[in-house]
């Protein structure tokens, strides 16, 4: 592929504001383990007329946790630079084969997991759930492709459904009309696929008369809340929704869970959307549960390395994994349960627990599962 002109993006990303202070790279969790140096990438863009993204294999290391952008004192968006450069690679077609297959699967099958669209609702077997395009409901529940297909996350989606039913929530799903929200595709640089998906959803959502959309994944939540433009309903992450139900007295966790639990803030819920208190409030409403914090929590939460499309891009230096580090941090608190609120965090951290042989010591559970366990 031919190199790309830096003039095409430096203004849009306001890179000229950069003072090269290095807070971006200093805060970057993957710079701890790979050659990804976002400050240097900005510098390269500023001093050269062209950049060759092909020579930067480490572009696929970024998890788009956005720490760099959030900490930049000059309001520059370094994370946006990564996505822009990935975009040039996507356009040239020269991308890792795993990324290619995930993107193609979203286009053909409406999910990045190579699963048949016809199987999208198998996770609902035995649960009585409304199909929202035929039967009106107050809440549109969005389980994410992970909740629909991934055997582990299916359990989370099913737990959440039980919690909704227990609290008397009037909810429904899009069933086989549901497709991937393309949040991760956008971060992999496939902007046009994302835009096409937004258009498809505008049509689908125009027929939905719900008051709220409740997303299982912080990634879908972020897409619908911040990137889909005006939607005809309020968009919530399920931890916000459960916190409301508990406050209104509609949901009462009663069964004791006398365990020490630590909570891992997902980047797209915590640092990017500032939802720190609701998940903790839900956990603390469970009788007997003792919440302990890791040293790096809330804004400082260490990324699990599953976001930004990293579920489909191995990245470089796979010997070192942030998820392993995170699991060790969780163990240091003395917790027996590591609570998560994101399907990608679930996949990464549970995998880390297994790889490190710590299954006897630490269990990874989603907040939805803990609430379901605590029902009467």
């Amino acid at each position, binding site marked *: 592929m031919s190199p790309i002109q830096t003039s095409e993006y430096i203004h849009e990303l306001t890179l000229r504001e950069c003072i090269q202070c290095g807070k971006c790279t200093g805060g970057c969790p993957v710079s701890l383990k790979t050659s990804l140096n976002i400050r240097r990438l900005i510098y390269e863009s500023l001093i050269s007329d062209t950049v060759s993204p092909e020579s930067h294999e480490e572009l696929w290391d970024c998890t788009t946790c956005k720490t760099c952008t959030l900490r930049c004192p000059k309001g520059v968006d370094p994370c946006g630079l990564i996505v822009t450069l990935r975009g040039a690679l996507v356009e040239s077609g020269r991308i890792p084969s795993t990324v290619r297959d995930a993107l*193609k699967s979203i286009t053909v099958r409406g999910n990045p997991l190579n699963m*048949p669209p016809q199987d999208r609702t198998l996770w609902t077997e035995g649960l009585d759930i409304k199909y929202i395009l035929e039967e009106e409901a107050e809440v549109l529940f969005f389980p994410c492709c992970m909740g629909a297909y991934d055997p582990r996350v299916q359990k989370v989606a099913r737990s959440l459904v039980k919690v909704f039913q227990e609290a008397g929530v009037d909810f429904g799903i899009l069933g086989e009309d549901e497709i991937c929200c393309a949040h991760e595709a956008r971060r992999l640089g496939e902007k*046009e696929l994302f835009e*096409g998906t937004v258009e498809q959803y505008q049509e689908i959502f125009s027929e939905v008369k719900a008051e709220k959309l409740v997303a299982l994944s912080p990634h879908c939540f972020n897409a619908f809340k911040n990137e889909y433009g005006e939607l005809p309903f309020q968009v919530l992450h399920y931890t916000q929704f459960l916190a409301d139900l508990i406050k209104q007295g509609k949901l009462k966790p009663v069964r004791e869970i006398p365990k020490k639990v630590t909570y891992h803030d997902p980047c797209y819920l915590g640092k990017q959307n500032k939802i720190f208190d609701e998940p903790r409030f839900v956990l603390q409403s469970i009788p007997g549960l003792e919440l302990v914090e890791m040293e790096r929590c809330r804004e400082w939460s260490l990324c699990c390395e599953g976001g930004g499309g990293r579920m489909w891009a191995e990245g470089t230096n796979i010997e070192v994994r942030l998820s392993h580090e995170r699991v060790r941090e969780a163990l240091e608190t003395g917790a027996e349960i590591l609570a998560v609120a994101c399907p990608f965090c679930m996949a990464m951290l549970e995998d880390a627990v297994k790889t490190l042989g710590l299954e006897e010591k630490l269990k990874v559970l989603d907040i939805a599962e803990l609430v379901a366990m605590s029902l009467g």
Partner: protein
Amino acid sequence: MNIVVCVKQVPDTEIRIPVQNGRIVEEEIKQYVVNPYDEFAIEEALRIKERFGEGKVTLITVGPERAREALLTGLAMGADEAIHINDPALEGSDAFATARVLAAAIKKMPYDLILCGKQAVDQDNAQIGIALAELLDLPHVSVVTKLEIAEDKKSAKAEREVEGGKEVIETTLPAVITAQKGLNEPRYPSFKGIRMARQKPYTVWTLADLGLKPEEVAPQTEVVVINPPPERKAGRIIQGDPETAVKELVRLLREEAKVI
């Protein structure tokens, strides 16, 4: 260098093919993709063009209206133009008839190399490349995992997998080469690329345009019945402590499954 790539649109490899009363229920198939082996062929054509810095890659397919999607995907990968042979008389066509149609079309255009997938994953006939070579009176190398075109573009060296080893074959060009997995890693056809592909040259031909009469390309085979594979039986868990369970497992593998 003019490279022609034969492409087929096939049902998505991840879906279960709906079969009823011994027939495939086509209306129930919602997703189609480019035959994966044809993607290797397209990619190889593009790489050859890139290496020489000149040339033209032409895609050709025989298929109904929906096959346009497959051609657009190939154009998005970087092919220069597409030829779509779409004629109602070709519905239910077989491999040999399709090869005849393709041969008639390819004769109308300049070519130095013809690339095909080694087989299409829907019918698994693996006949098109071979039949095409015969009909065009060209040399042919099948199931190729490495292809080198000589500097003068007059010959090619191809590697193919054979039982327990590999075979290296040299051929003059033009020739027909069929692509096997491993030949290359196909590039991604971006969303933007597919949109832009609509502006590339796209020609639709009927049998009449090729000077063919329907009876000349009538199928010579008939699919009598299609049976889905038997449903997989549920797994069995052997109870008991490891020592007895392993003995039981070995007994079952030997006596019931007869695999050891």
